């Protein structure tokens, strides 16, 4: 293990991007993610890279598209309202099968909303971050260490499967500091970008990066080919963490900062003799459905906790085919529940189970 540095989650993403060979960043300031831009504005010139502040999130994502099309490892970051602006570009990037990393340090919405931590963009990130049949590879870090390590994963998966990857975190994870080390695991070789538009040099046929198909059959085939890759991502890249699930009567499902609050509540509940565990999706898309389905064989009740009005809860119900009751507890608008609040909810459910 290398030495640790105390840094903010936002800074950890930025440094991890550089450590993973991303030397190009295009962004636009918005709270609570601006430290990513600020950090990279300082660091990129030191490593021969580029951090460019675009005129808008719309321009930034399209600069990302150009850089990705020409074969560069590239990243942009924003927070909820800014990610909505990027949606158009994200859809084009999917349609062109381009790899890149998009960071969303979520804040409360809709509209200008607020600037405090939120997970209200779960639907957007996992279902429809742009028009068309599409998915992004979505990772949800739960610590500053994971802000760094999952950034590396996001870049690798993006390159391997030619898909944009999203790091979906929130204002608390972006702003908080924890010790982090930047040891990078040994990596398998990634495919060469033979499709990149970087000048054919007279050595190959010209490359076209394009999302337009006038024949519906051609478009359908391109989408089917992409969904075949999505199946590979589902098979190979789904990640989750299980905590005390084996004997749990109640299985909580939570990700990101909320999973941390749940862990504290679970420990307190266990101390009171309540058998409760946690499944923490690390990838939100693909969703760890199989793990949930397996847990449904032994658990009596599922309890989903999110910083929104209930979004991932739908995926949990689908994953377990509604085989067990699924309840929801959440706070929204930038409010974070305390572990005591979550514990009270667990106790309520546990009380119902023993009746």
């Amino acid at each position, binding site marked *: 293990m290398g030495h640790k540095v105390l840094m903010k989650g936002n800074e950890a993403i930025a440094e991890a991007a550089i450590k993973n060979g991303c030397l190009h960043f295009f962004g636009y300031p918005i*709270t609570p993610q601006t430290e990513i831009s600020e950090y990279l504005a300082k660091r990129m010139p030191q490593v021969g890279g580029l951090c460019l502040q675009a005129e808008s999130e719309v321009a930034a994502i399209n600069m990302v598209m150009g850089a990705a099309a020409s074969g560069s490892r590239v990243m942009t970051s924003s927070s909820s309202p800014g990610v909505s602006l990027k949606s158009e570009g994200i859809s084009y990037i999917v349609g062109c099968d381009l790899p890149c990393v998009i960071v969303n340090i979520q804040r409360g919405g809709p509209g200008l909303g607020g600037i405090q931590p939120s997970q209200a963009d779960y639907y957007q990130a996992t279902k429809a971050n742009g028009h068309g049949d599409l998915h992004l590879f979505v990772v949800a870090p739960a610590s500053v260490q994971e802000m760094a390590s999952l950034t590396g994963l996001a870049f690798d998966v993006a390159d391997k499967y030619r898909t944009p990857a999203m790091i979906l975190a929130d204002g608390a994870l972006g702003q908080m500091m924890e*010790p982090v080390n930047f040891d990078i695991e040994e990596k398998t070789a990634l495919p060469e970008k033979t499709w990149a538009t970087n000048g054919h040099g007279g050595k190959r046929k010209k490359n076209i990066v394009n999302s337009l198909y006038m024949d519906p059959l051609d478009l359908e085939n391109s989408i089917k080919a992409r969904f075949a890759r999505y199946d590979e991502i589902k098979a190979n890249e789904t990640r989750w963490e299980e905590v005390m699930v084996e004997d749990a009567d109640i299985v909580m499902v939570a990700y990101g900062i909320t999973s*941390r609050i749940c862990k504290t509540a679970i420990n307190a509940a266990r101390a009171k003799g309540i058998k409760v565990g946690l499944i923490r999706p690390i990838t939100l898309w693909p969703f760890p459905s199989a793990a949930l389905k397996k847990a449904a064989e032994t658990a009596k009740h599922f309890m989903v906790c999110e910083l929104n009005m209930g979004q991932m809860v739908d995926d949990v119900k689908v994953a377990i085919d509604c085989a067990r009751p699924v309840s929801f507890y959440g706070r929204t608008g930038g409010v974070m529940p305390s572990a*005591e609040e979550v514990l009270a909810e667990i106790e309520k459910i546990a009380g119902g189970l023993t009746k």
Partner: protein
Amino acid sequence: MTTKILLAGFGGQGILFAGKQLAKTAMYSDLQVSWLPSYGPEMRGGAANCSVIISDEEIGSPIVTTPDVLIALNLPSFDKFEPTIVPGGLLIADSTLIAKESTRNDIRICRLPATGLAAENKLEGFANVIVLGQLLKQTGLFDYASFLDLMIKGIPASKSALIEKNKRALEIGYTYEV
């Protein structure tokens, strides 16, 4: 063993800096630590607070709602957070700015005129460090010398006056008898 510390006051009082010094020292002591600030416009003059959790095991929620230690540097923070201190916990209040006294009898109360001490010693702006000195004394959380050493290492050598002021402020806080 887990210690949950809440530092609260006005923006500009060095609340986040003080929390960061605790977090850094915890990291170099091979402990787990999380530092979670309030953020946004309040950083520019309104209320500021930060949660620091120091533990020898994995830290769950990084939000401190029931502090073991509350450092209150203004009256609104005192009013808001003093009732949340866990029984047996510790309150360190800047008595220069908080005239009100705690009526709780289930916590340890340490009233320290940090802002006044800073002014008397021409250390304006270092009340936060004075408070840290007293915190070390009251809790024994970290060794005084290693805490000081780490704090000084974070200051560029070119700012030797700043190093000296931090040193003096920490010492004044540490040696003050409440």
